């Protein structure tokens, strides 16, 4: 990857952040005297509001692309039907079987090792291999065609991997190459069971998005985890939520405050056969997997990018933005400034206050001059 072209790409991608600034209330080119019409004319603010009602960048981040069937004529229709029969009638049962066999082998090996093997080192090594194997079975169950670019991650202390997030399958795809310890939202159901019993053995850490106290506990666990040379490399999805792989939302700064090397991973899905975005509000993870398992293939590129370090004088937020820029450029995504948690919460009044401050200051300044 030529660094100069990346830099150029990043320059092109910058303006998006400016969306954040309220364009309406910015002072005019030359501060004129304040007149009645300046106060009465609220059209810029109204236009901004109407613009957000008609279209907004946040909603776009979570819009799933509906599949486009190609059954539109008499020649293609039988072919398409045949495809459906193959996908649902042959591929899906075969893949389910693969998955089932995979699980049986996995459990048959995992539990004895987990409970009976005494040697700490050997045990975690076998467990690691088993988890990697199980993830490969998963990837095989959607005929994952995954291309990995760049050097494979190695186990060493003081490094953290960050990747853009589209679905929980990101984790599976990355995990089949390297047993990462991942930071993830606690899930209910069978996913929760796997998290609790299996993934904890590779050092994964769970949190609850809605629990504020949880945050400090998790932050402490992270700091401890990265110091230890024996631990599996840490993987964080700093967006904190699944985005549709065309946009990225704000990176949360937690991963960038650990004081260690940050290794960006860019993941880009090819939507040719199936949209890998998991819209967790509309679909359970099981249904999401069924959708993947009934498609022809999941095509995906993974890039391991160069490790980055906090520069002198750089804040954690700036660092996070810099790493996000790298991932955005590599995976061809668009940036929005919003926090992904706005899916669950209202934006803080801070943003409104910022707009009010700029407007108030320009009014006061112009009043003084008149």
């Amino acid at each position, binding site marked *: 990857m030529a660094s100069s072209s990346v830099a150029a790409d990043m320059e092109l991608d910058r303006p998006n952040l400016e969306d954040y600034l309220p364009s309406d*209330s910015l002072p005019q080119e030359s501060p004129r005297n*304040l*007149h*009645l*019409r*300046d*106060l*009465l*004319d*609220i*059209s810029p*603010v*109204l*236009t*901004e*509001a*109407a*613009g*957000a*009602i*008609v*279209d*907004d*960048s*946040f*909603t776009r981040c979570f*819009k*799933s692309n*509906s599949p486009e069937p190609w059954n539109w004529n008499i020649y293609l229709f039988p072919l398409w039907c045949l495809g459906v029969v193959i996908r649902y009638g042959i591929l899906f049962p075969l893949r389910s079987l693969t998955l089932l066999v995979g699980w049986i082998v996995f459990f048959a090996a995992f539990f004895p090792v987990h409970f009976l093997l005494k040697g700490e080192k050997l045990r975690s090594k076998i467990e690691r291999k088993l988890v990697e194997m199980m993830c490969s079975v998963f990837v095989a169950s959607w005929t994952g065609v995954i291309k990995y670019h760049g050097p494979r991650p190695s186990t060493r202390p003081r490094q953290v991997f960050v990747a853009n997030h589209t679905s929980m399958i990101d984790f599976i795809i990355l995990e089949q190459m390297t047993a990462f310890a991942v930071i993830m939202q606690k899930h209910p159901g069978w996913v929760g069971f796997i998290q609790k019993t299996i993934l904890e053995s590779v050092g994964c850490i769970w949190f609850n998005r809605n629990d504020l106290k949880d945050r400090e506990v998790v932050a402490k666990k992270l700091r401890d985890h990265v110091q230890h040379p024996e631990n599996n490399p840490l993987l964080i999805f700093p967006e904190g939520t699944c985005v549709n792989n065309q946009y990225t939302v704000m990176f949360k700064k937690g991963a960038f405050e650990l004081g260690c090397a940050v290794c960006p991973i860019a993941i880009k899905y090819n939507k040719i056969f199936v949209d890998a975005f998991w819209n967790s509000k509309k679909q359970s993870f099981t249904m999401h997997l069924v959708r993947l398992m009934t498609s022809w293939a999941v095509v995906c590129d993974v890039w391991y990018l160069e490790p980055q370090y906090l520069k002198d004088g750089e804040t954690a937020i700036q660092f996070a933005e810099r790493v996000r820029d790298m991932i955005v450029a590599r995976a061809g995504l668009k940036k929005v400034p*919003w926090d992904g948690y*706005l899916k669950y919460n*209202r*934006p803080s009044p801070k*943003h*409104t*206050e910022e*707009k*009010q*401050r700029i*407007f*108030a*200051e320009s*009014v*006061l300044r112009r*009043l003084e001059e*008149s």
Partner: protein
Amino acid sequence: MGNTSSMLTQYDIEEVQDHCNHAFSQQEIVSLYHRFCQLDRNGGGFVSAEEFMTVPEFAVNPLSQRLLRMLDGLNFKEFVAFLSAFSPHTSLQQKMEFIFRVYDTDCNGKVAFDDILSILRDLTGSFMTEQQRQKVLIHVLEEAGYTKDSHFTLTDFMKIIGNSDLKMEVEVPID
């Protein structure tokens, strides 16, 4: 999602177009319909204030609470009518009427000092004191030949801001 456009017949679209004085093309109406369905999460056929507030870019707007009073519970026809003020095909007169309606909360056809002050309060929040706001407002009113007790009609609004290069346009994305 992809089939929602088929739920709008030519009739429906024309009816909506009539309702908004042909401010939008048929394609734009279809786009707006998609958007409407997206905002109407529970599929009730209208968008509640709560649902509008799920759009962060709208929620952070200083005038959002005020606009919600006009927006809450709109059905599709009313939704398009609301947005028609932001169409390039809408006359300046109609745009002014819209702005006037935002000010004129009690709908008596007159905007008083307090109405303007109240908008200014929304726009400046805690960054100006109430005294500062009053002082500013009285200052610009007097400069323009009005007083604190003046009442503004739509004609006054036209005179004050209507002649300017008012740009109140929103583009409807067509996919």
